[in-house]
């Protein structure tokens, strides 16, 4: 037993190095492959609209839920999307609640997802009043985040090069916010608010014009709106 100590220390040291470098254990790799496979089925559903792909994706994801802590949150988020598309909103909320708010880029983004699910559930029931209420909460959450990070938004949106704004984190939030304003207050109001905001901060005209165009077209796919 005494001779085993150095080997044990070497193994311990190697595993520490691997974990420091974010190395994958065999369990991680197996789990990662299954997550990718689940996403392939998921994509097939988006393309074919055949519900059988959602069932396949769910089966695969459920099978690896406890496989690797590295992918636990990804799996729950994927399951949440599958349940959302299957219109099983209570299960979607249940798995979302298993994901800690701290893994999101900002904690209230989890609340955004929750309200998107609730809004869709209300829409499915034909309850447009509740749907608008949840959309309103989403608007408040994004506005609050923008308010707290005002300088970051102003600095980014005022850059003269469009490429430095489009598809960055600021664009992500601004696009989602004004999409949901268009849902709660109408497209015309959202456009007007964008015009006022652009003038106030002297924001990049090309960026704001492009966003207004997309809001007018009311095409959430093109805008990359999450889970609408």
């Amino acid at each position, binding site marked *: 037993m005494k001779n085993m100590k150095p080997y044990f220390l070497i193994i311990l040291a190697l595993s520490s190095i691997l974990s420091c470098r974010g190395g994958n254990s065999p369990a991680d790799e197996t789990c*990662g*492959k299954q*997550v*990718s*496979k689940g*996403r*392939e089925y*998921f*994509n*097939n559903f*988006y*393309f*074919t609209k055949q519900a059988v792909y959602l069932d396949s994706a769910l089966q695969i994801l459920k099978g690896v839920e406890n496989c690797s802590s590295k*992918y636990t*949150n*990804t799996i729950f*988020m994927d399951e949440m*999307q599958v349940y959302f598309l299957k219109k099983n909103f209570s299960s979607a909320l249940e798995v979302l609640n298993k994901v800690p708010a*701290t*893994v*999101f*880029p*900002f*904690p209230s*983004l989890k609340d955004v997802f929750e309200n998107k699910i609730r809004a869709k559930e209300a829409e499915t029931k034909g309850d447009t009043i509740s749907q608008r209420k949840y959309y309103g909460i989403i608007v408040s959450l994004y506005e609050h*985040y923008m*308010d*707290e*990070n*005002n*300088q*970051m938004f102003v600095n980014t949106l005022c850059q003269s090069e469009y490429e430095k704004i*489009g*598809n*960055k*984190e600021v*664009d*992500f*939030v601004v*696009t989602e916010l004004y999409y949901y304003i268009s849902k709660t207050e109408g497209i015309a109001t959202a456009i007007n608010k964008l015009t006022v905001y652009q003038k106030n901060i002297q924001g990049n005209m090309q960026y704001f014009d492009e966003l207004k165009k997309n809001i007018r077209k009311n*095409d959430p*796919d*093109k*805008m*990359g*709106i*999450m*889970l609408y």
Partner: protein
Amino acid sequence: MNNPVRLIDPNGKDWVMNNDTKKYEWQDNVTTKGNTPKGYTYVGHENNDILKSLGVKSSYSGGQNRKSISLGGDKADPAPVNSRAGAVASTLLPAAEGLTKGEKAQATILISPLVSQGKATDNNKSGFTFDGVGITGILTQPISNLTATGGGLEVTNGGKEYTRGPLMPANVNNNISQDGYITTSVSGRLSADKLFPGSLQSANISAGTTDNGTLYIAPVSISFDLQDDK
């Protein structure tokens, strides 16, 4: 425009559409709208004039900013930032950078008339026949772990959806592609008997990523209203 000779088709032989059957026919004796027989609508002498009659263009292009949320890892300490009210807030500013990876997908739809030379008749000595339209969907995107694959092309014609997929690496010379980008495409055809003015309504190119390193990523889904903006 002041020269009326320019408006004359010297050789005749133009496309017309049978108003009852909505079929496109080539007639050697038609030269203008004026000598188009009763029961027919003048289309034009170019094959692409059939596309105009169908209400579509030969190409469409559009893009989509892809939004994603990176898988949370070790986060930097929250950076204090000033709020609009001037107070110091402690929002997780550095972590917000995990919101998107800056991917943009570009899609193109190409529509071309398919014309063959079949059986000759007295009024169509070359036997020109309109067989339908070929439709190609092309998706160009940056090469990265978020590159979207699979998916395909969906076309709505006459209220019915037609799909072709998956998107495959395009048979194009890579030299014409921008470095760091990949082009995938898929093609299909719709036969003439399914086409009539206004029938081609929309097209959509979709694809998705199988990357397991994101918490959420919106799939590529770029739609075109084919009857819009003629």
